[in-house]
């Protein structure tokens, strides 16, 4: 059963539509990348899933059940705008936030201790947040998100403000949580982390869902039988079916050509005709990055 099904969600404000008939479906134990430019409606969607605001239309199911107050205990949320009570002690704060997610007090204490030990900040248990470094506060923020072992973890720009060491640490924790059975919604502008972590992707632009599916499928669908060849010397006479899209000279004095061929041809055919023409140094398929897909779709959309 799908962990989360969002069907036909719309949200309108007086002057603009924040979400227009958006539907996504997220399978268990996947990392789901929610992408889109600023103001596209991602945060609105995330807030609706977190029941901070209500949708005008549409329905949300969690594990097949209609979203309700009881699901607060099975969702973990790390908002983009985040912080902690500065005057509160680390331990008190974690236990309090755990209790707000319906953890019994005893369990909240025990789990908070286990997590702070795991991330090496247990010694700071009785320190106030304002006395902590930013990195430590971020770890505590992360712990508070996952303390109650939520089935669905929603991370909005989780790495913003993290130093590379902590970012890696959190990345490993995210992967581990997925292994243990959690489903993760991951909203970010950082395409390299999408490329690295996400199993599925949805792209929202101007309040509409314009793309969704597994990362592999989407990338495949954007393949165009285009190959990049590095070669020495010019390609003298390539048959007309192959079109050379672009040709540049690399810093090692090689030519780099981007060649597109008809879909019924195989790469071997292209390679063999190249070998007879020139000295081939490298040959790779040009697979579009998520970033390229993102930019082409968003910019393409803006021309409408």
């Amino acid at each position, binding site marked *: 059963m799908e962990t989360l099904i969002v069907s036909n969600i719309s949200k309108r404000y*007086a002057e603009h539509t924040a979400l227009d008939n958006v539907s996504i479906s997220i399978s268990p134990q996947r990392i789901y990348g929610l992408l889109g430019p600023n103001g596209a409606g991602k945060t609105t969607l995330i807030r609706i899933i977190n029941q901070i605001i*209500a949708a005008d239309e549409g329905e949300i199911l969690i594990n097949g059940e209609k979203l309700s107050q009881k699901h*607060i205990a099975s969702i973990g*949320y790390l908002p983009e*705008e*985040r912080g902690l*009570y*500065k005057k509160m002690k680390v331990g008190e704060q974690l236990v309090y*936030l755990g209790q707000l997610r319906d953890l019994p007090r005893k369990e909240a204490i025990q789990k908070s201790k286990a997590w702070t030990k795991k991330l090496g900040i247990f010694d700071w248990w009785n320190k106030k947040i304002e006395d902590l470094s930013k990195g430590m506060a971020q770890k505590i923020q992360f712990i508070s998100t996952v303390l109650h072992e939520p089935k669905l973890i929603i991370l909005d720009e989780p790495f913003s403000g993290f130093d590379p060491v902590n970012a890696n640490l959190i990345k490993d924790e995210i992967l581990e949580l997925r292994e243990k059975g959690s489903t993760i919604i991951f909203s970010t502008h950082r395409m390299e982390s999408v490329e690295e972590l996400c199993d599925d992707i949805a792209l929202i632009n101007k309040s509409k869902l314009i793309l969704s599916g597994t990362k592999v499928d989407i990338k495949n669908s954007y393949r165009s039988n285009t190959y990049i060849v590095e070669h020495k010397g010019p390609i003298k006479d390539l048959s007309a079916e192959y079109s050379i899209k672009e040709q540049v000279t690399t810093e090692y004095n090689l030519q780099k050509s981007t060649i597109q061929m008809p879909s019924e041809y195989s790469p071997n055919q292209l390679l063999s005709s190249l070998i007879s023409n020139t000295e081939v140094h490298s040959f790779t398929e040009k697979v579009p990055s998520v970033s390229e897909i993102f930019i082409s779709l968003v910019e393409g959309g803006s021309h409408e």
Partner: protein
Amino acid sequence: MNKMFLILQREFLSRVKKKSFLLTTILVPLLFPTIIGVVFYFIKKEDDTAKQKTVQVLDESHSLSMESLAKFKFVSVSGNLDHAKEAFKESDDFALLYIPDYDIEKPEGFRLYAKSNTHFSTINELEGKIRESVKERKLQAYKVDTEILEKLKTSIDLKSLNVSEGGEKENDAGISFIIGYATGFLIYIFMFAYGGQVMQGVIEEKSSKIVEVIVSTVKPFQLMMGKILGVAAVGLFQVIIWIVIVSTFSLIVSAIFGVDISQTSQMADAAQQASNSAETEKFMRLISSIPFTKIILTFIFYFLGGYLLYGSLFAAIGSAVDTPAEAQQFMMPIMMPLIVGIIGMSSVVNNPDGAVSFWLSIIPFTSPIIMMGRIGFGVPWWELALSMSLLIAGFIGTVWLSGRIYRVGILMHGVKVNYKTLAKWFMLKN
């Protein structure tokens, strides 16, 4: 409900655990009685140290009694006035009182010689003494029996009673006024102090950006109410501690003063004792007639009601702004009715049952202050009931209004807010 209690608990504990809470809770109630106590102590000490002054009396009429008064001792001198004056100048005595052989139908020629300017209270006291003596002689001359006259002396104590509330109770405008003004003023201060704490707390949550984490677990309304009630609990806790400290303190003080009163009355003469005890009795009766329980209960009701009314408005303002400085522009409309209340207090004092007093004590925005001012004078039960129900309706209204602004405001950052924006947020559907 359970989570609202969690929030309430955190708000309560985080404030009560602060050192500043401990300090204000203990110092404030000790400060005022201490100041008053110190002042009383010195006044009393001065009275005690004042010695009896000696007054020489040259009585040519031979009628003045030489019995001492509390402040004066009388010594009889003889000879003619000039001699007496000379002798007086050389003595250490306070004054020389000359009583000529006067005509009782036309008592004139009394003189007081002193070495410095004489205080009018001294003149008053001595005049009284002479008057008594003249009266005595007149009674004898007219053959009026002093015993019968003594019997004619009747002490009348007119109790002023208020019957408008069913039960009869004695009232005293002075004491009612002081209590009313003090409690009304306390409510006025509490509105600002605790309301301000709510606003500060909301701004803190907003600026530290924890608020989105919290509202993903509870409804904004629960968060707002949890905070408002948490601070209310802090206020109530503080007020109860103050009441306990003040009443313990005043018990101790009155115990000390009580002993003193009995001592002085023993020393005083019989006549004085009689009039003293009548007055003491009246005072005690008035003190015991002050409906302390009623005043405390009304105070707690109006404190909570008024606080909920204004506290929720403070919360709404806090949610709309990013910094306390920005909040200033919205403070005016909240402060106006409170200031009107404090100013209106003076008209309550002059006319506790007048139209201004009535309306200000009925309208929820001023009733917490004004009703406290009126309560000591006695308020018809229906007015009290009306005022209380309107206050409840009032705070339900402001809590509802503020809740609608708050739920939008807390998630807004860096927005220029004016009244139009607030109205828009209020109208926004969920």
